[in-house]
């Protein structure tokens, strides 16, 4: 049975696209046939993070408008042949998104994919509402910072009221908290909200904590999702997150301040 998972946050710049790319790639690495959709009409970026920007021919809006078939628009990932990207349109306006049009595409994807990951744009406009509307589960990407926590809370309210599941009175969307850009050392000095604080404020289950790391920028530079960087803390944290999503019980890692030895201090990690 296929699952639609929205990656959302309300606030921009917290790591939605990074998380979507790594989450989708990680699921595909474990053998699940996965599609990842960019809902950010006008500000396409998932293609860059996935490293397929030069292979975009048709986009999501073309498919909705019947100008291209889904098969034509889906881009197959170079490294994993069970992973596909549906890019956002760069030029059209978001009025192209109708519940009916998006619903048809999602239904068609459900027929052949295990997981459909919806990368939401920031804000609570049409694109964001459409990205979450059909979701079965949600990853709420949150930074340990006041405006991000508030916006996540707002998005949780919307998931519970404006989604298809909410409107039809079905079982509610399963919500998972993903904390990104976490810095253990700053939490230790009391200058950053701790994980327990964020969890207590938002009241949802914690799926993963991604530590602040230079590896994320390097991954986006290269167009290779950070989950494929097996050496970096962030890559490993995303792998753990995916294992937990698939039902494994794993302890959270990278939550404590690392005691850096002399050599580590000298050469960094």
């Amino acid at each position, binding site marked *: 049975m296929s699952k639609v998972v929205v990656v959302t946050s309300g606030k921009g710049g917290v790591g939605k696209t990074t998380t979507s790319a790594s989450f989708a790639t990680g699921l595909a690495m474990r053998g699940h046939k996965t599609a990842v959709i960019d809902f950010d009409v006008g500000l396409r970026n998932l293609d860059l993070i996935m490293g397929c920007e030069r292979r975009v021919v048709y986009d999501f809006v073309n498919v909705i408008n019947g100008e291209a078939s889904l098969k034509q628009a889906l881009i197959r990932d170079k490294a994993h042949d069970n992973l596909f990207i549906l890019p956002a349109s760069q030029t059209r306006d978001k009025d192209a998104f109708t519940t009916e049009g998006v619903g048809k595409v999602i239904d068609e994807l459900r027929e052949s994919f295990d997981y459909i990951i919806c990368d939401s744009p920031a804000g609570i406009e049409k694109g964001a509402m459409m990205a979450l509307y059909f979701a079965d589960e949600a990853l709420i990407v949150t930074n340990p*910072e*006041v405006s991000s*926590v*508030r916006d996540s*809370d*707002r998005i949780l*309210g919307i998931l519970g009221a404006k989604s298809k599941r909410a409107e039809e009175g079905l079982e509610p969307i399963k919500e998972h908290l993903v904390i990104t850009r976490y810095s253990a050392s700053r*939490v230790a*000095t*009391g*200058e*950053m*909200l*701790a994980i327990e*604080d964020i969890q207590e*404020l938002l009241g949802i289950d914690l799926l993963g904590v991604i530590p602040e790391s230079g590896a994320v920028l390097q991954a986006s530079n290269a167009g290779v999702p950070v989950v494929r960087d097996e050496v970096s803390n962030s890559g490993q944290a995303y792998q753990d997150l995916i294992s937990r999503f698939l039902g494994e019980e794993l302890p959270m890692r990278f939550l404590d301040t690392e005691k850096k030895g002399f050599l580590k201090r000298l050469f960094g990690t």
Partner: protein
Amino acid sequence: MMSILDYLTRNRKKTASVAKERLQLILSREHATASGPDYLPALQKELLAVVSKYTHIDLDDIKINLEKDGDCEILELNIALPEAENKVA
């Protein structure tokens, strides 16, 4: 005399807990508004119209608060009248 260590850690120590307290307050307030009935803003405006017939007040002078106490909901209305103006009139 304050030591250098105190100086360095002075401002940092409590900002995370300040953040948490501020969030707790604002989120609970926003939840109250979100869960309240839709007619509260309209009620506030109509009350303003009625009171304005007799004296001058601003929309901000009407405070409407809906509180839940177990199963019981309490609608609290608080209308502040301008004192000085009443005397002049």
